[in-house]
């Protein structure tokens, strides 16, 4: 009987890889198309929704002023299901069939890493608005078409280490990292940042997205003498770490990358969620600058389910996407053309843009494709479902 059973697992794997198609029927009008490849379903679906909202608000503003190069912008969205292979297929389809002039990426570093070689080869600008993996923009290609308005792991890691030393006087931090390329990118970054400060780390532990119980890993870190934990994972697995810490009764400071912002972290992790201090590029809470008020009002108008700043989650997705879309439109306008190479040079030619996150001055150069730097990060925490900035 068992021999009958064996082919099953193989079929199971094949079936698991079966694709689900997403569709976006585009009206065939004369528009300038931009494409988004992001997670619109699955655990990180909320991130895709946020990016769509940020891009849409920006596109509405641009179109209200007549569009770019006299043409209105149109957004095409494809679901990568957090799967790199599907991301590449979607990027190809958008570039080759839909002829989009620029691509935007989603939350998953592995997906963006898979799209980078295609974008560089096809000479189509690829704008990252969330995924923070260092090598996405620093990809070593002789002709680099990848830009980003988001956090960058290696800079985030320096900020995490700085914060842990300043706030908690960390002497022997431990790392609890998700077991994927994003975790790896930060392992490198954190090690380098710690080495710069001549701080030894206690231990490094990895865990999986669907791990229910992280106690074994955390117990190892505790026994290694960790006095602060650096956490790198998306919202659901981050919550599992907090719940496991609660159960162990280990009250250790947690300094985190921005994973918790991707969903209902305070609901998933319980009251201890507030102990996790995590990095953000933007927050809609508190007193906003005029630009922030303006975007917030537009969001409330366009998406009636947004009532307070607690509903604008994840704020980083919206804010990064909003600024990235405006910068891309400026680059196309500077280029005076929809040709990839000219748009790339258009990015370099942007002098200033007064954006939502900051006032950008020369955001991109041929040596630097990242618009945000260490000074643009803030530390935040969750309070009853709302992301609030921490005063350092």
């Amino acid at each position, binding site marked *: 009987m068992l021999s009958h059973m064996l082919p099953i697992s193989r079929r199971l794997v094949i079936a698991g890889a079966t694709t689900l198609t997403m569709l976006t029927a585009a009206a065939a009008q004369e528009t300038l198309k931009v494409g988004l490849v992001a997670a619109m*379903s699955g655990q990180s*679906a909320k991130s895709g929704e946020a990016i769509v909202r940020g891009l849409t608000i920006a596109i509405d503003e641009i179109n209200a002023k007549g569009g770019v190069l006299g043409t209105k912008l149109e957004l095409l969205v494809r679901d990568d299901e957090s799967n790199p292979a599907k991301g590449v297929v979607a990027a190809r389809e958008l570039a080759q069939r839909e002829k989009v002039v620029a691509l935007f990426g989603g939350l998953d570093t592995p997906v963006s890493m898979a799209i980078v070689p295609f974008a560089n080869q096809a000479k189509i600008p690829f704008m990252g608005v969330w995924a923070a993996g260092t090598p996405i923009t620093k990809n070593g290609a002789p002709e680099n078409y990848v830009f980003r308005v988001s956090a960058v792991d290696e800079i985030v890691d320096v900020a995490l280490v700085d914060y842990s030393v300043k706030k908690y006087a960390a002497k022997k931090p431990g790392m609890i990292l998700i077991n994927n390329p994003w975790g790896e990118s930060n392992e490198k970054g954190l090690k380098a940042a710690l080495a710069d400060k001549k701080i030894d780390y206690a231990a490094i532990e990895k865990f999986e997205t669907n791990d229910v*119980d992280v106690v074994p890993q955390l117990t190892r870190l505790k026994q290694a003498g960790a006095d602060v934990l650096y956490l790198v994972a998306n919202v659901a697995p981050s919550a599992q770490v907090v719940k496991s810490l609660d159960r162990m*009764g280990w009250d250790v400071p947690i300094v985190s990358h921005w994973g918790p912002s991707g969903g209902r972290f305070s609901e998933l992790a319980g009251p201890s969620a507030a102990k996790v201090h995590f990095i953000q590029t933007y927050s809609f809470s508190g007193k906003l600058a005029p630009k922030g008020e303006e975007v917030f009002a537009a969001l409330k108008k366009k998406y009636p389910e947004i009532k307070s700043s607690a509903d604008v989650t994840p704020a980083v997705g919206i804010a990064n996407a909003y600024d990235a879309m405006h910068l891309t439109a400026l680059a196309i306008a500077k280029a005076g053309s929809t040709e990839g190479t000219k748009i790339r040079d258009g990015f370099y030619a942007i002098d200033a843009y007064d954006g939502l996150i900051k006032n950008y001055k020369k955001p991109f150069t041929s040596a630097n494709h990242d618009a945000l730097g260490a000074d643009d990060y803030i530390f935040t925490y969750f309070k009853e479902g709302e992301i609030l900035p921490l005063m350092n």
Partner: protein
Amino acid sequence: MLITSAIISGIGLGAMYGLIALGFHVTYVVSNTVNFSQGSAMMLGAVLGYSFGVTLGWPIPIAVIASLLLCGMFGLLVERTLVRPFAERGSNAWLMATVAGGIVLDNLVLFTFGKEPRSFPSFLAQKPVEIFGAGVYPLQLIIPVVGIAAALAFHLLTHRTRYGKALLAVVQNPDAARLMGINVRMIVAASYVISTMLAGVAGLLIAPLFSVHSEMGVLFGIKAFAVAILGGITSAWGVVLAGLAYGLTEALVTAYLGSSYTQIVVFSVIIGALALMPNGLLGRAAVNKV
């Protein structure tokens, strides 16, 4: 402390795998088919429990019963539409059909329940109690009890009751069973109902320790199938034992070697165990009569 917490974590998770794997066992001994949407049935139990108990605010016992009944109906639907039409024609296409059924359900839930993982609070998973220096939620202690009780109940059912004997007669010779007045179709359908309800129980039990979302069952379904094979899918005890062994190995490897080695070691152990015991831990060798 390291070892106590690893053992308790391992037994709790292992019992979960065992419960879902028991569902594979139930349909297999009755009909030689399995439901590859077991992982989705587990997710369905958790999602329905959340929707009834948290969103609609029903009393928990009623929410649990309603969820399990609906899980059972899902099992009935799977058997009637995804298994029977193929199995009766001697085709193996139910394999693909049940996998597809699971994917359809996962995505239906994604669109109706929503994209975000939600938290299912339970008073059994709020205050940890301390056992040999390790913090444990009462729920983690209940899970293995439920798992072992389910295996025991099933063992007694098949070995001590007429109904159970009828179950086993069906798999040995469906035609002869039919001639003896046993309603074969009904028994096969009942086995599917039981199997999805077991998965539903697993889903409801794990939900407070985990988060509720449409994909939560995928990995559990795959691991539970590995457990079913490891235990010898024809033995209820073997399956539960294998579940516990799997969970324990997973937790101990993580605790002592580090998480990078968990999957490598655990699945190598499974391959090794199957090479030594091709019929699983407690499974009997199959005889194919020609």
